[in-house]
């Protein structure tokens, strides 16, 4: 059964469809929250996210766009907890457009294959935890949650170009961490 069908049935008030939706998306939401926050807060924030999802679900106009909507809510809860970190990073290093940084493209493609080869492995999770929050969230949404650049842009409320530049920077930071650990792409 597709997400859209489940969401439409849940919007009608079918409890079984709502339970199945929670079952299906419980782990992806928790994974995103846990990659952004510590273990102590992850469960509470996940519960808070689902409460907001249930309250907002009757008003969701596009059931087919459930995943970006769900992660937008999750991101809002995470951002509330990390407001200080987001503000500090924004002040320290404003986003650079991808076209202003052409030198990084070769390194990007090299490290991208390394990231993709590591995508199911626990090492990636540990490395991602060391990244700044803005780059970390894009990396988690794009690689771990398998969302498109456009969906990431909608979730984070930024242009697609900014998503690409953050992804690029995240890959370079990850490459540096990988090299520190002795991995050579």
């Amino acid at each position, binding site marked *: *059964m*597709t997400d*859209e*069908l489940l969401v*439409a*049935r*849940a*919007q*009608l*008030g079918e*409890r079984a469809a*709502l*339970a199945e939706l*929670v*079952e299906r998306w*419980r*782990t992806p939401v*928790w994974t995103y929250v*846990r990659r952004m926050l510590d*273990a102590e807060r*992850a*469960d509470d924030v*996940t*519960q808070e996210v*689902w*409460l907001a999802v*249930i*309250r*907002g*679900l*009757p008003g969701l106009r596009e*059931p087919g766009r459930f995943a970006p909507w769900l992660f937008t809510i999750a991101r809002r809860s995470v951002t509330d907890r990390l407001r200080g970190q987001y503000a500090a990073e924004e002040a320290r290093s404003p986003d650079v457009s991808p076209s202003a940084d052409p030198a990084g493209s070769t390194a990007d493609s090299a490290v991208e294959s390394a990231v993709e080869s590591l995508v199911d492995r*626990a*090492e990636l*999770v*540990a490395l991602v935890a060391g990244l700044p929050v803005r780059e970390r969230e894009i990396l988690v949404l794009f690689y771990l949650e398998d969302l498109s650049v456009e969906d990431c842009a909608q979730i984070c409320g930024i242009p697609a170009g900014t998503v690409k530049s953050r992804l690029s920077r995240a890959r370079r930071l990850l490459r540096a961490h990988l090299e520190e650990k002795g991995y050579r792409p």
Partner: protein
Amino acid sequence: MTEEEPRLSARELIDRLEPALAARTRVRAVAALVAGVSGTLFVTALWAGEPGPLPVRTHLAFGLFIVFCLAWACYGGWLLARRVPLFATDRVVAGWIGVTASVVTTVATAVAAVQRGAGLGTALALGGLLTAVALALTVRAHARRAALLRRVRELSGRDGA
């Protein structure tokens, strides 16, 4: 490093969300809104239809009672807008409760106005307005539910194909 898992199972998570989904939560929110709005209309119509000059204390009592009813209406509205999920079928039921309550309030207000020989026009105008709003919300709720049912049928057909 081992892969972590959520501590809460799906069942536990749904159990924790249960208070927000409970029928009594929705009934309470709808009842607060309907009672608050109906009470406001009834007292306003009575106040506006008073035939003779009233003492200041009676004006104050009417005013306070309207504020009290409005507070309940606002509380119910806030619950429904922010706290309590009202799914498509719930909205249809809530809409008909609203229509019934507004018709009953209009009739009660009109009867009171006729008995006192004043304020029938105000009672009918306010009651008619309230009933029209309730009907419009109910029609919208039916349309939304019908659209969702159509979509479910389409998607179920596609899934089954």
